[in-house]
């Protein structure tokens, strides 16, 4: 058990990589399809277990450092050195929070895909890329050095783009995938350039070490700007959101939630950069306000673009942009008041809790919504809401899941969206009432737009063309019900979730010194 806990950070990233390369081999053998599905589920099950024990350990003991190739995993700085030279994984409350989000979504997506992909060509590549994307995201969440942040960002981007373009027989899928790879390549270049600037100045790559030596020179500010632009582009924040609707819309259902999670892993990277790498910055208020403005713009423009969409997945994709704004708003408020202890204790910390809690909530309900949209597409072959109608008669489960997701995203109790949105409204009200009013207004419009689609797709008279439409296969229902169960559970016990997984994440972001000391504290 000790062995597993110690090595969990690397196993969680290395096992999916092994699975990704073993899957093509297994698929080539006889009876490969079945074997591959069993193998994928077994590996992911093992990883879920590892993430669970690692989460328990991180919450109980604190930051866990894993040094590659050293004589002991905790030995971040070799004997005779004063700075870390090896590749380091550093798992704190925020990293493991992202790990939990990604892993649960990956599990639901994989189970959903088992039936969804049945009979399609190129399944070996599909599952292979799913595991690569998973490994990239987990690596991004766990990495303790800047260069591997870039490497894992690239792995996730390439796998994500290939998955988005999976239906190569459709022109829009190729376009969506192409946009994603172009955006990813540009942001990866910006990130690499920023890392170059930091490395040239401090001669180290470990995040903790750079944060330790950080001087906040003009060059550092340029690097911060490059990193921020790149990561906002990757997380689809307005005004760099143009790729998201195209990419989310065309990706096959099992992968849309994964690409969505990849966007929020980039958001994690943005938080890591602003809070940990540039934590001691004198002028955090300005940076906080920039984050808030990007958040409010995303919220408002995203929802306004969503209202008039007729493609059901495209509408949801614009809502994803809009909901991303809530997270940025909550955390931005925390960042703006981080140097003011009274305000931080009064509302800053809770605002951050709200913003971070909203990540897990949003990924769950938006993943569920994407899955219901694709379930409709799976059965009737169109995403156009004008061509749908009366589907609730034959697709009862899908309709029920859609309602759960739609109520959750609109912030109606007792679903999880309500819990995090209430936290954000209350705390932002103390910071700036106008922002809170905008947030509530956006929520109302969200409800209106989802109600509209619900009436268009699920209610009304039965259309003759869809008389024989059946409910989706079992594995897809199981995949969706996993997420629905989490949504209801989080909605009923929000206090429990905030205390057990969200608050440690917030504390980890605020506690920059703790992150640095976990690596640099070992200096003899």
């Amino acid at each position, binding site marked *: 058990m000790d062995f597993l806990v110690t*090595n969990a950070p690397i196993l969680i990233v290395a096992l999916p990589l092994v699975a990704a390369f073993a899957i093509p081999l297994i698929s080539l053998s006889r009876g490969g399809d079945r074997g591959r599905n069993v193998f994928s589920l077994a590996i992911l099950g093992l990883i879920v277990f590892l993430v669970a024990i690692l989460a328990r350990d991180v919450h109980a003991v604190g930051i866990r450092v894993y040094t590659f190739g050293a004589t002991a995993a905790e030995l971040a700085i070799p004997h005779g050195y004063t700075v870390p030279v090896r590749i380091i994984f550093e798992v704190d409350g925020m990293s493991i929070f992202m790990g939990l989000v990604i892993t649960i979504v990956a599990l639901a997506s994989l189970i959903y895909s088992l039936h969804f992909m049945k009979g399609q060509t190129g399944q070996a590549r599909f599952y292979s890329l799913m595991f690569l994307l998973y490994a990239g995201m987990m690596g991004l969440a766990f990495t303790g050095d800047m260069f591997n942040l870039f490497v894992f960002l690239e792995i996730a981007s390439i796998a994500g783009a290939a998955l988005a373009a999976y239906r190569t027989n459709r022109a829009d899928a190729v376009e969506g995938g192409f946009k994603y790879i172009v955006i990813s390549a540009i942001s990866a270049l910006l990130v690499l350039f920023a890392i170059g600037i930091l490395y040239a100045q401090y001669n180290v790559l470990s995040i903790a070490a750079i944060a330790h030596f950080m001087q906040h020179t003009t060059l550092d500010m340029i690097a911060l700007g490059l990193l921020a632009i790149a990561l906002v582009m990757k997380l689809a924040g307005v005004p760099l959101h143009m790729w998201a609707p195209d990419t989310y819309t065309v990706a096959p259902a099992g992968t849309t939630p994964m690409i969505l999670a990849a966007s929020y892993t980039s958001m994690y990277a943005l938080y890591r950069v602003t809070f940990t790498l540039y934590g001691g910055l004198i002028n955090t208020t300005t940076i906080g306000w920039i984050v808030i403005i990007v958040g409010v713009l995303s919220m408002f423009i995203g929802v306004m673009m969503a209202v008039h969409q007729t493609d059901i997945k495209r509408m949801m994709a614009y809502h994803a942009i809009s909901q991303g704004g809530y997270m940025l708003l909550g955390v931005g408020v925390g960042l703006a008041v981080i140097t003011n202890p009274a305000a931080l204790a009064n509302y800053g910390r809770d605002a951050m809790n709200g913003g971070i809690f909203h990540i897990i909530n949003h990924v769950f309900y938006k993943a569920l919504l994407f899955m219901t949209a694709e379930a409709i597409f799976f059965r009737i072959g169109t995403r156009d809401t004008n061509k749908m109608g009366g589907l609730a008669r034959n697709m009862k489960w899908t309709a029920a899941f859609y309602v759960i997701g739609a109520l959750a995203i609109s912030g109606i109790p007792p679903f999880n969206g309500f819990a995090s949105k209430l936290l954000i409204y209350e705390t932002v009200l103390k910071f700036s009432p106008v922002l809170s009013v905008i947030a509530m207004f956006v929520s109302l419009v969200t409800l209106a737009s989802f109600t509209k689609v619900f009436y268009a797709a699920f209610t009304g008279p039965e259309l003759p063309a869809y008389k024989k439409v059946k409910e989706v296969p079992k594995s897809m229902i199981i995949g969706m019900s996993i997420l629905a169960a989490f949504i209801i559970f989080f909605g009923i016990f929000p206090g429990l979730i905030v205390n057990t997984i969200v608050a440690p994440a917030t504390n980890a972001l605020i506690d920059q010194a703790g992150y640095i000391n976990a690596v640099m504290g070992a200096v003899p």
Partner: protein
Amino acid sequence: MLSKIVRTVANQLVLFILIFGLYVIAHGHLTPGGGFQGGAVVVSGVVMLLVAFSSQDLKKSVRERVLSIMESTGALIFAILGFAGLGTVFFYNFLVGSPIFGRIPPTGPNSGDFWTGGFIPLMNFAVGLKVIAGLSAVVLAIALFARGEEMEE
């Protein structure tokens, strides 16, 4: 397909390119180069064959299935070498001190001892295998797509 002279010369030259590529892979831990660079050198031989002959001819002798197996195997060997160090820490260089690539080189300028580096030369071989298979598949696929064909599914 180019003239007979080109085809004959290409047929002979490809062996030398192969040997040079393997040399770069094998000496990755001593000289500039390594798995990726050596693999790319080998694939430049494949590109030469692609120019000299036609993509259909090459498709007959280089099958996608084989390339796929080679690529996955290369990646798996790399990962397994990482896992093998797990007794201590992932990526721990467990071969140092052993008879295979286990010698420890002297400090300072020296002529370079091939049997050093622990598992790094082995990893170079694994990466080389992956790059040879992967890049060959890429150039072959591009050549075939240009003619409006596809690789077999």
